[in-house]
């Protein structure tokens, strides 16, 4: 089988590697530039000092952080957004055609009637594609973690998009996308419909899990602040430098926290996200920054489990194709 797999996929592998190298040619210099800029502004040192002195870095390094944000943050996100689609692209071009193209062109009737059972054929192909997906996603997941490290200083890496692009979750997403593609092929028997199903299914599941499941991996924590917060009017999610006083209850805010909800309440505990006239205190629920890696591992586990389930279903559906 190994000869056949190599011969069938060598062009695809080459194209993928070339694409990866091209993207690296853009990302590595820009990553180096961001790291250099942060170093020039003295950001890493400043933040280290602030943490050592147990003071909030945002208050101390404020001007440097502001300058760094202006220069790099928005451009960076535009360039990196592409990588949000990387798992989907791999699922579409490596996963969906795996079975669908063979059935669409009828070559499954050639290759399954030689001497190799269709189970063995499928396992070998899935293993190959799975390994390719694993390696590529590990490379760009960890590469993006490096690339985004300075940006993580200015805004939470725990928020949407930022969480999805770095760390180990890209591995889970990629394996899931590939498994979905392979399954779609055993279900729909033609490449384009399988791609469409993969696209729709991937987006639906990703959005559902990110919006509904991710906030609940561990019980959120709450904290309150007496009095008013400067920069109250800033929009949620926009990376901005907010100097914060200590909370009256709960853990102090860190840059890496994930804000889930915030309400401005009156003395009776009623309120919403509008600033009321009889404002008494601010109430927030959040996931602490320290939970970033545990959440990464949990979400990766969820998607890997889904991937394995889809691979198993695909193998079962394969038995009925003629």
């Amino acid at each position, binding site marked *: 089988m190994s*000869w*056949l797999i190599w011969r069938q996929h060598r062009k695809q592998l080459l194209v993928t590697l070339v694409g990866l190298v091209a993207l690296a040619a853009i990302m590595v210099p820009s990553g180096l530039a961001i790291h250099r800029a942060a170093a020039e502004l003295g950001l890493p040192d400043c933040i280290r000092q602030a943490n050592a002195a147990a003071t909030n870095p945002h208050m101390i390094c404020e001007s440097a952080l502001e300058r760094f944000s202006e220069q790099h943050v928005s451009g960076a996100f535009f360039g990196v957004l592409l990588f949000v689609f990387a798992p989907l692209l791999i699922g579409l071009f490596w996963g969906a055609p795996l079975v669908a193209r063979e059935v669409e062109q*009828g070559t499954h009737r050639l290759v399954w*009637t030689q*001497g190799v*059972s269709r189970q063995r054929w499928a396992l070998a192909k899935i293993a190959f594609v799975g390994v390719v997906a694993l390696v590529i996603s590990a490379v760009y997941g960890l590469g993006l973690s490096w690339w985004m490290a300075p940006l993580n200083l200015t805004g939470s890496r725990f928020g949407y998009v930022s969480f999805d692009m770095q760390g180990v979750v890209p591995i889970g997403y990629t394996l899931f996308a590939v498994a979905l593609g392979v399954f779609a092929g055993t279900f729909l028997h033609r490449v384009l419909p399988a791609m469409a199903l993969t696209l729709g299914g991937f987006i639906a599941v990703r959005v559902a899990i990110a919006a509904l499941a991710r906030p609940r991996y561990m019980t959120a924590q709450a904290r309150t602040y007496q009095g008013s917060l400067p920069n109250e009017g800033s929009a949620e999610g926009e990376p901005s430098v907010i100097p914060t006083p200590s909370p009256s209850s709960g853990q102090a805010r860190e840059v890496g926290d994930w804000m889930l909800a915030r309400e401005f309440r009156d003395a009776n505990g009623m309120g919403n996200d509008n600033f009321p006239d009889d404002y008494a205190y601010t109430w927030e629920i959040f996931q602490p920054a320290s939970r970033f890696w545990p959440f990464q591992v949990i979400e990766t586990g969820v998607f890997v489990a889904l991937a394995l389930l889809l691979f198993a279903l695909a193998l079962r559906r394969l038995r009925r194709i003629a």
Partner: protein
Amino acid sequence: MDMALETEGLGKRYGQRWALRDCSLRLPAGRVAALVGPNGAGKTTLLHLAVGLLPPDAGEVRVFGASPYANTSILPDIGFVAQETPLYRDFTAAELVTMGGRLNRRWDAALARERLASLGIPPNKPVGKLSGGQRAQVALALCVAKRPRLLLLDEPVASLDPLARREFLQTLMVSVADTGTTVLFSSHIVADLERACDYLVVLHSARVALTGDVEDLVATHRQLVGPRHDGGPIRGVGQVVRARHTDRQTTLLVRMDGDLGDPLWTMHHVGLEDIVLAYMDDTSNDVTTAQSAWGVSA
């Protein structure tokens, strides 16, 4: 005698529709058999069941005594070419031969190469660029290199020009001469059958209409012409296959089971092609329905 292919009450269903039903046949080893029938009669389904691409929904199928579904031990003994001769179009003929060597336990690469060379097929051209006839020959060579005991071919010459068709048949006959392999090929081109085949299976509407030795079939079927006769037995006639009437005359295609006992009938021999067409002919009902639908008098 060794049975290359045996089926008993074999059936396959897709949802509510039976693509093949109640199919029982026994193909002796060493025969070259033709599987004929109109489109949609179940020929492809039968071949897919025989090569183990599909599991049966009813009855059973055995190739040299073994069940072919999900059975890799019998796979080396069966060579199969599917409809429209699927091949990896970007592979060259040489690469396909290499692929065969990697995927098959028993593989005679030298035989494949020698065959393709003698047919003038270039080894290093992607097979997608070859003509239809050449692709069919490549597919056949790949089968033959397995040294199978049974060859199953699904309409291998359907889209070929007459010359390519003749060349394909020639290559097939040489294989049979050299190895004694059993062949079952489906075709809806009836004309080629008589020279190549010594066994026949006729399918119609998902059922077996006729099976048997070609020699025996030609010897026992006759065409009878006589005065108008609307049913009722005739001495010597075992089965009436098809009846045609004018106002004064009746023409019957029959299977005899003895000497003709009725002097009113004139008896003629029937060729294989006409026998097959008679068993496949079922348009009489369609005609009357269509005539009323068109508003045309019968």
